[in-house]
């Protein structure tokens, strides 16, 4: 009950934040360019009086700025974010098309980060000061210092061009083609359709981008796991567990690890932000048709409707992610709910 009211309160607090975000985006994209029409129409259709008139009426460009903002907001609430200059599709439709690719890549890289980051952090904590600890520290620092757009190119050069063991850019082999559309997550869709060639092709295409994207998260997880496990292992109840003759593996797994993982929840928000930042670079390098690449193309081509739309959607996703993190934390630690 208490938890539900906490969630409701947090959701209500998000409304003014989202309104603030739309104002910020509106200000950035409407006030900076000289001609507001340039934000809605392509250069070509600006020569066409009919489309200029239609756009002026739809977006209320002959009205005052506050009025224009409310019209923008009204259209937004109805799911209308304008037409992309580049793809000529409604931005909402484009985002729905591109989002699953990013979600699939994000989940894959998160799984990679957990599968490698947790054991690396645990071993670094248990052998603090030894080789594995130093190795994990250097590995983590490399992850935080390496430009993903560069490491991605190196991986492509090595595994695709030189060794030929992994496929190049893209989501699936063009000769095989994507699986029948259900969710847009190719791995899931291909299994659903029983299309095994598409499944293996999508899986092999996922490996390199997931590694590049997951490296930063991996580094974060390994370091947090290490430091919080070291702290927990010094607690009295661990000494008690050891003193009563428990095997070391039981002490670590049953007693220490469960408590050491609590701080992991708090870094999920940070990890998600890292994932989104990395997705922009990784998707560009690997020609991955996700929302990150869409955002980059929109900004390079000055495709204003697409730029505003993707930025808004990413910001809202980010807020929800932070909300989920906070709720998880409130579930684990009841004191948060009271505050």
């Amino acid at each position, binding site marked *: 009950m208490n938890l539900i009211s906490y969630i409701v309160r947090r959701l209500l607090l998000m409304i003014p934040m989202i309104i603030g975000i739309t104002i910020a985006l509106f200000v950035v994209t409407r006030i900076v360019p000289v001609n507001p029409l340039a934000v809605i129409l392509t250069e070509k259709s600006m020569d066409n009086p009919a489309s200029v008139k239609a756009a002026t009426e739809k977006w209320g460009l002959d009205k005052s700025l506050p009025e224009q903002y409310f019209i923008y907001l009204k259209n937004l609430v109805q799911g209308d974010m304008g037409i992309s200059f580049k793809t000529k599709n409604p931005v909402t439709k484009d985002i729905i098309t591109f989002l699953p690719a990013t979600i699939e890549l994000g989940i894959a890289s998160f799984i990679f980060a957990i599968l490698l980051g947790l054991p690396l952090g645990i071993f670094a904590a248990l052998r603090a000061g030894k080789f594995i600890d130093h190795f994990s520290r250097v590995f983590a620092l490399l992850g935080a210092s390496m430009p993903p757009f560069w490491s991605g*190119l190196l991986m492509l050069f090595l595994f695709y061009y030189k060794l030929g063991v992994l496929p190049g850019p893209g989501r699936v082999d063009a000769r095989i083609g994507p699986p029948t559309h259900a969710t847009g997550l190719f791995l899931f869709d291909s299994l659903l359709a029983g299309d095994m060639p598409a499944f293996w092709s999508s899986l092999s295409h996922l490996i390199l981008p997931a590694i590049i994207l997951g490296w930063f998260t991996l580094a974060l997880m390994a370091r947090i796991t290490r430091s919080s496990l070291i702290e927990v292992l010094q607690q009295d109840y661990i000494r008690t567990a050891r003193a009563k003759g428990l095997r070391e593996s039981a002490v670590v797994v049953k007693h220490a690890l469960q408590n050491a993982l609590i701080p992991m929840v708090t870094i999920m928000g940070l990890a998600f932000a890292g994932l989104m930042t990395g997705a922009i670079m990784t998707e560009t390098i690997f020609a991955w048709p996700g929302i990150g690449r869409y955002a980059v193309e929109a900004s390079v081509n000055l495709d204003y409707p697409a730029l505003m739309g993707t930025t808004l959607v990413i910001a809202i996703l980010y807020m929800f992610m932070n909300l989920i993190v906070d709720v998880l934390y409130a579930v684990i630690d009841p004191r948060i709910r009271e505050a």
Partner: protein
Amino acid sequence: MAQSDNIASLKIQKSDAPWKRRVKSLLRNPMAMFGVGIIIFWILVAFLAPVIAPKGPLEQNIGDRMQPPSSQYWFGTDELGRDVFSRVVYGARISLPIGLIVIVFAMIFGCFIGATAGYFGGVYDLLIMRLADITMSFPSIVLALAIAAVLGPSLTNALIAMILVWWPEYARLMRGQVLSVRNNEYVAAAVLLGASQSRILFRHILPNTFGPILVKASLDAGSAILNIAALSFIGLGAVPPTAEWGAMISTGRYKFYNWWMTTFPGLAILSVVLGFNFFGDGVRDAFDPRTNKS
């Protein structure tokens, strides 16, 4: 006699200020000093670029296009026959200052706003902090991308975009610091002595808040350089033919089989960022006694 000697020596020890202790602990940290070494190396490269580089950064030699590394071209040549080694060397003159400018300006701007918000409070504080919340509700590169795109592709605009995205982190930190310091007795004493508001803020409060700010700035320097390189890579920062590392990787990406075109500028970014990260970790350890031991 012996006793008074002891007391004298005690007095001398007491004069060791906290910041002195921190600098000493930083100087004793081999990882941090390794980082400083890398940074000094690149600063020297930037200053001595005309001496070190055998060719100009924009000097073309079409006859020698896309040559792999050799004794003549240590890092090979690019699609216009420019010497990659010379371009990497000259690139230090862009990435280093740009990264530092972003951090310094975001820090000054953010600290000023955060300090005044924390000190004066009220509606001003409320508005500033909501603006900070909104800015921070975007993953920073996403907002920087949008701002840089709207302003138009150039290194200056990328710089402005990064500062606009980064100031709230400093403002928030600074505001918290000011709020915790302003309730100290010595601030009340200054008020009673009739000191002016600006004197209290700048002479009594601010000098006691800089520790965490400096730690954050040194931890952030690496990612500032990384993000500027990323914007240039996308095409919203330095534009061709500028010898900027991110832009160099960008032109080399469609010819990634010519590995030297991307590998060497990438290694340059990696080493600089690594240097700043080593140094930042060291500064944090020196200021936070809890992480000192582990």
